[in-house]
């Protein structure tokens, strides 16, 4: 990861006491996956998490939301929960988002390891709805999601 923490998958913006980022994807799933990676990159060396092989573990994540923003919020909150309650740090291995009966549902399999195996810096306290959006750009045919997390 380069010094300004930005890649093709996501980009960080300056925000005094918080972290603000956008994540991109050709599909909604890809944009959500990249948003999760961006959030993890605030705390961990993302290359280390992506390439981690020793003592690998998996976790299933299932969340719902009445709209895409709520779905994203709930997904990232679940990732924070796994980090602080189960000390599990991982990235998305598989992800699926479906829309049924006015509800969005997300199912994902995360792969990663116990936090103790990684060197962390900083902490994400909470996901916020501050400036959050999920947008589809018709021209580019791409999704962009924007998130501010409290540090």
């Amino acid at each position, binding site marked *: 990861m380069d*010094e*300004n*923490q930005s890649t093709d998958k996501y980009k*960080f*913006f*300056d*925000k*005094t*006491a*918080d*972290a603000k980022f956008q994540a991109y994807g050709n599909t909604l799933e890809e944009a959500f996956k990249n948003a999760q990676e961006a959030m993890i990159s*605030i*705390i961990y060396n993302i290359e280390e998490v992506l390439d981690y092989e020793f003592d690998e573990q998996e976790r299933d994540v299932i969340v719902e939301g009445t709209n895409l923003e709520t779905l994203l919020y709930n997904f990232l*909150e679940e990732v*924070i*929960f796994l*980090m*602080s*309650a189960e*000390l599990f*740090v991982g990235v998305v291995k598989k992800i699926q988002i479906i829309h049924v009966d006015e509800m969005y549902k997300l199912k994902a399999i995360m792969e990663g390891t*116990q*936090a*103790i195996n*990684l*060197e*962390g*810096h*900083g*902490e*994400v*306290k*909470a*996901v*916020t*709805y*501050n400036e959050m959006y999920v947008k589809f750009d018709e021209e580019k045919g791409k999704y962009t999601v924007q998130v501010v997390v*409290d*540090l």
Partner: protein
Amino acid sequence: MVEPTKINEFTWKIEKHGQMNVPAVIYSSDALMSKVRSDKTFNQIMNVACLKGIVGNAIAMPDCHEGYGFPIGGVAAFDMDEGIISPGGIGYDINCSVRLLRTDYNFDEILKHRTELLNELFKKIPVGTGRKGVIQFSKQQLLETMNHGAKYMIEQGYGKIEDIDRTEENGRLDSDPTVISEKALLRGVPQLGTLGSGNHFLELQKVDRIYDEKIAKAFGITHPGQVVVMIHCGSRGLGHQVASDYIMKMEEKYGHADLPDRELINAPINSDLGQEYLKAMGAAANFAFSNKQLITYHVRNIFEKLYGSQDNIDVVYDVCHNIGKFEKHIVDGESRKVCVHRKGATRSFGPGRVEVPEIYRDYGQPIIIPGSMGTASYVLVGTKKAEEVSFGSTAHGAGRVGSRSEALRTLKGQDIIDQLKNMNIEVKAGSIKGIAEEAPQMYKDIDEVIRVSHGIGIGNMVARLVPLGVIKG
């Protein structure tokens, strides 16, 4: 863009206009104001002034900067019948707070084993994210300590009873841990006894200068060179989850259509949900008090192991930074109970208040203000003036100016470590990157913040402390 009117050297005011129910006041200086203008602080403090039932002024402290809903360094008091309680006005890290321990050790004695001391502290007090406390507690014990506060920890053998006399609210706020979500509990269980990351730290310091000998002596600070230990942490993931839970619940129940900013989501103090949040906030606050009690226990043991005794290590005081309180203040010439939100602000009560521990009551409440890494910290004393003009509040720290991504772009952790080493400050950190994020360049000048607090008289200088060693997340 609104430009506040300068009233005097340290005071700016935004008169009531539009939807504001009260004026907004900013305590600052020309030097500090230039940075305040560059973020959303003015808008945020004006938004706070629009909230229902607010009394007096909406106030921003000298270290203020943009935050979630309320600015950091925001103070607002609300009427008990008409007013609201807002989780964003307390902050995600409920009862993020600072405890100062004084010792009888002199810095030259401590320097002999400094590296070993920092290593031991680092081992016993886990820092960073995803780390478990060295002593593990059951869910039942967690509930007990959220109910009874720091006293429960002392009953379990982790401290002296005098410690809680020297803790704001005696280390316990009114609470009901049964309202806490399972999610919050599960986040709390592994984290009791951990420091966390970000701006949280444990610092080994020496007294650099004493400004008020009489009051310093009353606080147990006797001479330059004396070693003290400062602990800055909060309610960890448990508190963050409580904040998230209640922001969500209040959104569902009350919505944000009437609010100038969605982040100011709130509930009437008198509502069931408002009361429930206060009970949950109290439980998280008690977790934070207990957390520092446990860390104090480790500090004492390590000092004893390396230097022979822990009998001479006492709590000076323990102050809350992110909290909602019910306190009596003079509003419109009459004394009444109000709900004070302090978000990134410290209580500053003057002599005589019953809330100030008896041993300090003749002098005023001790205020502990940490600087940024490698810079000075201060001990101040609370004042009558603060009770008159800021609902008994002053600053809480240096206050951030630069974002973490800016820090990572422009600074290297190793350079900061070397820079501190040149100042004879030893750093023990969870990660080098974390050091860059918390570099002193990313914060306001603490000396200037204190100059403003002292200049207005909302927190007067007692002693200046400088670091010898830092443990960082």
